């Protein structure tokens, strides 16, 4: 794979970190499988963008983050949200449109928000996670709170103007932000190389004077190292990084997509290289865990997904009075204004 890793941390993840990444990735896979099954069975009716195949990217990044760190993500974002720690049941209930959902059912699958773990914006607009991430990072920079912000987006978003505006501003202001392009090879139905000049996203970082790293996003060790480098850099005030994490999505743009635009050989090769069984084998060969421990992790993840489904489907619908709440805030509390004493120099 065409990746370059100069300047990336030499250190390797210890066994506990690898197991942590796997635990997060398995939780994503289990929830995705249960969500697709529930949708197919007609238990839930919503638009759904499966992250199956992309589990490792946010899992390997999130082990470097705390709940205080921020992320912004996009409509295909359940993997980013679960990896960051949003409780599965709140996501499921939001997907089911119930009042117990993370956003009371008012946002839906494309708009999960959960500030307790730093998931502040999930956008349905391609390219819009990046400009807002800069603002979160600006707040951290001004407060000196040491938080980092991760903006997730897809390869299609690298061709939107907001990508370029955001990278430029982040570099000019040296913001503690990490731009993570999850390059899954297809922007909706459009093949990456056919519509992306230069055939590479990470190279664009050079134009903004920031590090750009292309990495195999399906390799947990490489992804962990690249993420560590970028997070350390942002946290220590050295500024932004662009990561292009190469991956693949197995279930098309959205649920129901027949994938006819993907050459069968490409799909077959991607499925044969499914990162999850490969990761499992890696853990066993490195003695990070034994078979029984991995089974426990996998069973717990599936149980959590089933519990979340049960919670969601047994939850009440929102009341229609919700149409009138959260549109505007209530009366704002106006502080006592301190009059600035120095003479104004305005004309």
């Amino acid at each position, binding site marked *: 794979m065409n990746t370059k890793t100069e300047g990336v941390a030499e250190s390797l993840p210890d066994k506990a970190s690898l197991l942590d990444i796997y635990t997060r990735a398995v939780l994503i896979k289990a929830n995705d499988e249960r969500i697709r099954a529930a949708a197919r069975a007609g238990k839930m009716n919503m638009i759904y963008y499966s992250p199956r195949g992309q589990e490792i990217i946010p899992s390997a990044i999130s082990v470097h983050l705390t709940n205080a760190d921020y992320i912004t993500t996009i409509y295909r974002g359940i993997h980013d949200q679960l990896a960051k720690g949003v409780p599965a049941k709140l996501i499921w209930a939001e997907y089911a449109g119930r009042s117990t*959902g*993370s*956003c*009371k*059912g*008012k*946002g839906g699958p494309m*708009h999960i*928000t*959960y*500030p307790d773990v730093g998931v*502040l*914006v999930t*956008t*349905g*607009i391609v390219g*819009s996670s*990046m*400009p*807002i*991430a*800069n*603002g*979160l*990072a*600006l*707040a*951290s*920079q*001004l407060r000196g709170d040491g938080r980092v*912000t991760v903006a997730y987006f897809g390869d299609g978003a690298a061709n939107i*103007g*907001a990508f370029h*505006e*955001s990278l*430029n*501003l982040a570099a*000019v*202001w040296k913001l503690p932000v990490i731009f993570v392009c999850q390059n899954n090879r297809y922007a909706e139905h459009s093949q990456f190389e056919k519509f992306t000049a230069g055939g590479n996203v990470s190279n664009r970082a050079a134009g903004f004077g920031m590090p750009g790293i292309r990495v195999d996003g399906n390799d947990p060790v490489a992804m962990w190292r690249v993420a560590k480098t970028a997070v350390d850099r942002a946290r220590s005030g050295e500024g932004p990084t662009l990561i292009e994490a190469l991956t693949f999505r197995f279930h098309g743009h959205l649920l129901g997509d027949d994938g006819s635009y993907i050459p069968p050989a490409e799909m077959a090769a991607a499925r044969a290289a499914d990162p999850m069984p490969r990761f499992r084998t890696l853990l066993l060969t490195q003695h990070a865990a034994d078979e029984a421990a991995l089974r426990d992790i996998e069973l717990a993840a599936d149980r959590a997904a089933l519990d979340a489904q049960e919670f969601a489907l047994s939850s009440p619908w929102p009341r229609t009075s919700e149409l009138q*709440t*959260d*549109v*505007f*805030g*209530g*009366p*704002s*509390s*106006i*502080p*006592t*204004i*301190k*009059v*600035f004493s*120095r003479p*104004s*120099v*305005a*004309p």
Partner: protein
Amino acid sequence: MSENINCIAALNMALHDALETDPTVIVFGEDLADPEGGGVVGVTRGLSSAFGDQRVRSTPISEQAIIGAGIGAAIAGMRPVTEIMLMNFTAVAMDMIVNHAAKLRFMSGGQTHVPMVIRTMTGSGMGNGGQHSDYLEAWFAHSAGIKVVTYSSPSEAYGLLLGSIFDDDPVIFIENLPGYFVPGAPPVRGTVISLGHANIMRAGSDITLISYGAMANQALLAAENLSREGISAEVVDLRTVAPIDFATLLSSVDKTRRALVVHEAVRPFGVGAEIAAELSEKLHGQLKSPIRRLGGAFCAVPFSKPLESAHAPKAADIEAAVRSLF
């Protein structure tokens, strides 16, 4: 009696006082820090020198990035005052404003909100042509979750800008370009005008003239002229264009039984249409005449002076429209 000041100085005072009052207030936009000139007309002059180049920053010409950064900072607990130099340039940042700033409170179920101000200037009269002069407030008023505010005098500019900065919702704050230079009584420092309340500029009994921004002063001038003809016009300045203070409008028109809405924005699908429809629905049968609307001509703001002058309503147009209702 203090000396009169213009709106540039009043807005500058409001920004100084907001920055002094609350450390979470930050200000950024194109060319607005002192090394870049302190703003194209000087509204932000002196701020970066007084409060530092961290809290007061110039930005690249990147409207989406400016508003995006404002949204993110607001969600994270700051009170950003962003600037989009001219109102037409908000079109470049519409996704950030309409899909994100306006909607995040609702779509997050109230978990996040965006206490951000977008200051922007506009208005015909300076020969700036079709892409630097439009009043576009109806675009934003049509989006649930964002407020629209504008002012008609220096003291109103001061109080309403502070009211916008300390409001918990996103606010488009419109500054009239030719009106910047018109002097008026200075504000009482520290006096905030909270959003959502229209201002009765002049009491009257025969008709209600509803307007906002610099155009409210044309309505006031028309009302003075009409009083010499025996027509008593009440003049209401909306102050907050969205959401509209319909309680004040209904109470006024319930009394006068006639209304004329005047704005510089083009008339079709405008704020005037919304006000006329609402008043007609609520007061049908009590009205002595149809509710009339005056707005800018339905074309791009033209350059040539005679064309530009004819584009927006003037006091004389308002007076003629009022006479047609009696």
